[in-house]
């Protein structure tokens, strides 16, 4: 039997995570709320993108959302409310978002911000297959935040829960606190570690070997440079999806949005009545995953 819509939104199987260790994950944080996030005028961005490309009703959804993004970035950060809608009817289960995210954020083996879960149901000759991308839900009451012993993770005014790797001590409490399994640990692994052993790093050799390349370049999370070269942060840290805040700054949509070949992922400012995402949330039956947990995700699903 196919999973009903009600079953879907309650299905912990979809989260890919062990059930959250902390019950009552949505309890109020007693921790500090002022993390000194940039706010006000200094966060206002005048984004020129697409200024010379005429807006058109039939334009690609990606362009419309990019215009929405530019509008949102024209406001101070605290007046934005980032949200995401994933239309499972349009998701083709391709994992472009998963890999896009791995590549954009130079995630090592074991660290995944946006898996896509495939479920099969039904019986021949009427089987069913459904795909569920699962980013961080950017909960309005994030259970991962209050458990952090060092205040290394917090929820920004714009709705995104962030991690300061330089503060994170890698204790993994937040991993178990998240009912969605949205956080993973960075153990410092390399995708090339097992390749061409014996070839050395000698660039005059017959083979390329594991000469420095893409993995050694710093990533750009949170607008900083995080290099893996010297085993510094974020190695050893908890890592999670951050809606590509560093791309938003540059007027670019999160990479899981721009890589979506089925255009199933919508993104924008839920405070903006004109934004595609806001209209969609109001029009369609958009549901939150594990809504009964009270985490109040900023990510919605249409099924």
């Amino acid at each position, binding site marked *: 039997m196919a999973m009903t819509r009600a079953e879907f939104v309650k299905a912990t199987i979809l989260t890919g995570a062990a059930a959250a260790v902390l019950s009552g994950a949505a309890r109020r944080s007693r921790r500090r709320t002022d*993390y*000194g996030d940039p706010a006000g005028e200094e*966060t206002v961005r005048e*984004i*020129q*993108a*697409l200024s010379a490309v005429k807006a058109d009703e*039939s334009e690609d959804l*990606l*362009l419309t959302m*990019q215009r929405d993004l530019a509008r949102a970035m024209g406001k101070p950060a605290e007046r934005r409310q980032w949200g995401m809608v994933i239309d499972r*009817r*349009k998701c*083709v289960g*391709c994992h*472009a978002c*998963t*890999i*896009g995210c*791995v*590549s954009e954020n130079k995630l090592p083996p074991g660290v995944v911000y946006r898996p896509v879960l495939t479920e*099969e149901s039904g019986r*021949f000759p009427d*089987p*069913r*297959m459904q*795909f569920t991308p699962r980013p961080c839900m950017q909960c309005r009451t994030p259970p991962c935040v209050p*458990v952090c*012993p*060092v*205040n*290394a993770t917090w929820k920004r005014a714009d709705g995104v829960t962030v991690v*300061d790797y*330089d503060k994170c*001590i890698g204790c993994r*409490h937040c991993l178990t606190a998240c009912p969605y399994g949205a956080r993973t640990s960075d153990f410092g692994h390399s*995708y090339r570690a*097992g*390749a*061409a*052993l*014996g070839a050395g790093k000698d660039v005059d050799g017959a*083979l*390329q070997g594991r*000469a420095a390349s*893409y993995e050694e370049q710093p990533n*750009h999370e949170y*607008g*900083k440079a995080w290099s893996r070269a010297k*085993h*510094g942060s974020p190695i050893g840290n908890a890592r999670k999806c951050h809606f590509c*805040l*560093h791309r938003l*700054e*540059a007027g670019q949509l999160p990479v899981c949005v*721009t*890589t979506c*070949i*089925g*255009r199933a992922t919508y993104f924008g400012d839920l405070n903006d009545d004109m934004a595609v995402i806001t209209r969609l949330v109001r029009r369609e039956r958009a549901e939150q995953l594990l809504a009964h947990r009270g985490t109040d995700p900023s990510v919605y699903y249409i099924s």
Partner: protein
Amino acid sequence: MTNEINPRNPISRRKFLAGGAMLGGGLAAAAVAPAAGSDDGGQRRGNAILNSGRPDADYDLAKAENTLYSACLQCNTGCGIKCKVQDGVVVKIDGNPYNPWTLVPHLPYATSFDDALPVDGAICPKGQAGLQTAYDPYRLRKVLKRAGKRGENKWVTIPFADAVAEICEGGTLFKDVPGEENRHVDGLRALMALTDPALAEQMAADVKAIWDEREKAKKIARVAEFKNRYAAHLDKLIDPDHPDLGPKNNQIVLAWGRLKDGRGDFYKRFAAALGTTNAHGHTTVCQGSLYFTCKAISEQYAGGKFSDGQKFYWQADTENAEFILFVGANLFEANYGPPNRSARLTQNLVSGRTKIAVADPRFSKLASKAWKWLPLRPGTDAALAMGMIRWIVEEKRFDARFLACANKAAAAAAGESSWCNATWLVAIKDGVPGKFVRAADLLIDGQPLKVAEKRRTNDGKEFEERFLVVMAGGKPIAIDPNDEQTPVFGDLFVDTALPDGTLVKSGLQILFESASAHTVDEWSEMAGVEPRTLIEVAHELTAHGKRAAVDIHRGSAQHTNGFYNVLAWMSVNILLGNCDAKGGMIAASTWDTKGKGGLFKLDAHPGKTTAFGVSSIRHGVDYEKTTLFAGYPAKRNWYPLSSDVYEEIIPSMADAYPYPVKALFMYMGAPTYSLPAGHTNIETLCDTAKVPLFVASDILIGATSMYADYIFPDTSYLERWEFQGSHPNLANKVQPVRQPVMAPIPEECTVFGQRMPISLEAMILGVAERLRLPGFGDQGFGPDLPLRHPDDLYLRGVANLAFGEKPDGSQSVPDANGREIEIFLQARRHLPSSVFDPERWKTIVGATMWPKVVYVLNRGGRFEDHALGYKGDRIAHPYAKLLNLYQEKTAGVIHAGTGQHHPGYACYLPILDFAGEKPDELRKGYDLALITHRVITQTKSRTIANAWLSAILPENGILIHPADAARLGFHNGETVKVVSATNPDGAWPLGAGRRKPMEGKLVVTQTVRPGVVSFALGFGHWATGASDVTIDGHVIKGEARRAAGIHANAAMWTDPTLKNTCMLDPVGGSVSFYDTMVRLVKV
């Protein structure tokens, strides 16, 4: 984990963690002071995202000077890519928004670089992982020479120039290899026996005369004449008694896997310069019979016969169709391809504008979005199609107006651009449809229906036009199919005798009778689909006018009956009259790069020797015409209607039929891995008597290049040029350009005085320099038009693209402005001068074209704006020609295995071997039909290098229905071995004593038809980094990840007659991928 002290955190992690453990986990938290960094008020905040002690950093990936547009080649969809460079390294690949593959509609071409910059188009996971192909630790940097037996994977590095010299001059090249101490290898110089262009041209003409001679005695006489005439030159021929085998040059065979224009021009120029007719691609391993059936459909009536068919096919206009039946096509994972087609489909599916049905034995991701899934039985595509044809005709739900158009004028009058021959009369002899009736032959009261006319063909040859015949209102009338003046609408269903007694039927009548061989219920039963479903889908197909289509791919084509499966489905499309219609079937449209506009004539090849003779795969000529004709069955199949027959290239060498081959070049090909029964190729490649010299061009030691004598390292798709072309699901006229976006991995060499990375081009240029081959060097394209460096060809190709196809230059692109030129130069600052030298580039294309070339390269190619792809309800770049529902040319070809004529119309054929027998013996005791499928994370042989993709699907499995699993006592996840009648061992014999069992894990699932098992292609490697290799005495370990999963191609049937290759489609050339019966054995 690290024990390093974090300078911004006063407590070391280890110390903290230790403390935390003592204090009991989370409770420790409160004891820790907030780390430093949140109060750095005075610091510059470039990004204003995170206030911390760590300084803000620029986002390099959003900068113009780090952005280069190119075209992907992780699969042949060839999406436009946007490569982002960080400190000289390509670190991120996204979609090129100028390119219609990744944004729908794509950005207008005139959009400035800066305006387009923030827009990332969408590409699939493989495309994004492509940088792992380019930076693969197993990439080759130096030329390797074999130092052990073939397949032993022992190599030595060798200087580029030495390798070129050895290949050209031959000798006892492998005297250090045990067993080959005295083996002499002929070099290319010796094999290039015929180098006199005038002599070659004469000989070629005389060989053609031998072929055109129909009488056996006269043919023999012509051969004798030939030998007399060229008595002084017989040593240049492979076999003087069979001059039509051509010169010894033909014993050099150039083969390839994935080759696109540009590189194709280079490689084919190399073949032409060597004087060999043997340049063969891989088409038949992909969807050959789709191409060659459509070629047969597109043969044009000219000069009284049918010729000039295009090797191409049509696909559905995904963006505008209201209903599409996909057969053996899975556009969410393959099918040319996921980014361009998914983006055009998903919203329409949700809005209800488009509905789809999917016929496939496996429930694909595409099927999961379909209104109907038709789990047809493998190989019964034509049965399903014939059932629909019968129903559509009986219910009169075909496009009668379109079908009645008998000539071009009628098409115009009916508002159509293409027309078909459904109404033309075919003569029936002994109940068998043969040739079309010619009006000049039809005598009525002693007078021909129309008197023959003397006419000239386009190339000036005189011929007699005898005209064709249709019935109009029951009366025969003569037609000229190409007549643009007088519309003729013919009667659709004709079954009668002409006044002279000739029995005739219309093409449509013949099709209907073929479809009437069984009832709809019977056809449904054969296809394994419910009759009700068949009718529902046929009803839906015929309920949307021209905005409905059947879109097929390799699932239909890759059977022994592939040609007729494809023809059956294309016949359905013809019944729908959807060709060239918006929402119907469309053909691809690409911008020329070879110099159509007259700027640089890249086809010019001064001094080349005309190649002639039977090709090594026996294509393009009727068996009966050649001097090798010796009755039926022929030793191997002949392919007058197809080309690029991959499964014949190496096995034909094994049989030395039509002749022995002395040297094989393989570029970017892995036939041993990709072909069904590919292991048969390994045996031949390991035999130095059958393949005396084997040279491969590859980016690493691959599944086939590992058997080579020399491997020249190649540049990957991110380091080189090509013109990717288009696909027939895109209406716009386009030409994506692949260009170097990263510094090459292979080391540099010097050829013709030029520095360049070792690559396919360098190998060719090196041989050309040494052998002074025509068409290369200072006068390569003609006076003052050198071909000494790859840039000489590619940049001129880009200039041609920028110039356009009109000689007056009116189609030229604009000049790049100063800002764009600055970006262009900056974005290539990480490329060495051997690749990018602005002065060299500018000199090659000239100062006038330079800013236009920059304009094109800054956009990753040339792309027509979206709206220009359509004109009202029609495609702006239509096919606009004759479609052959009935194929006189096909009907005239005789099956070399059986001696029977091929049918000239759509029909259902069972699975047959080369002898025309049903493989019932091979089926006995094997109860499961083996098929394959594609997952989006792998492209057959070349994407296993991408570790990111392995993380998504570490290994494939064998999909099996729960009922079969239960019947056989198997459970999910159990490891089993795949065995078949032609591979009872269930293993790959890899040569040099190695073997790899075909073992994989069962995936028990409701998503596959009972009785069918399927595995995804792309796993179970034995090379490509999966095995240890020894180079210069050092062992380089293989990576276990790459060997994971199963590749069961070796279980696919070897043809019981041919014995050294897979089963095949004798007409369209396709390999049989989905016809084998196997058994699963517990391991």
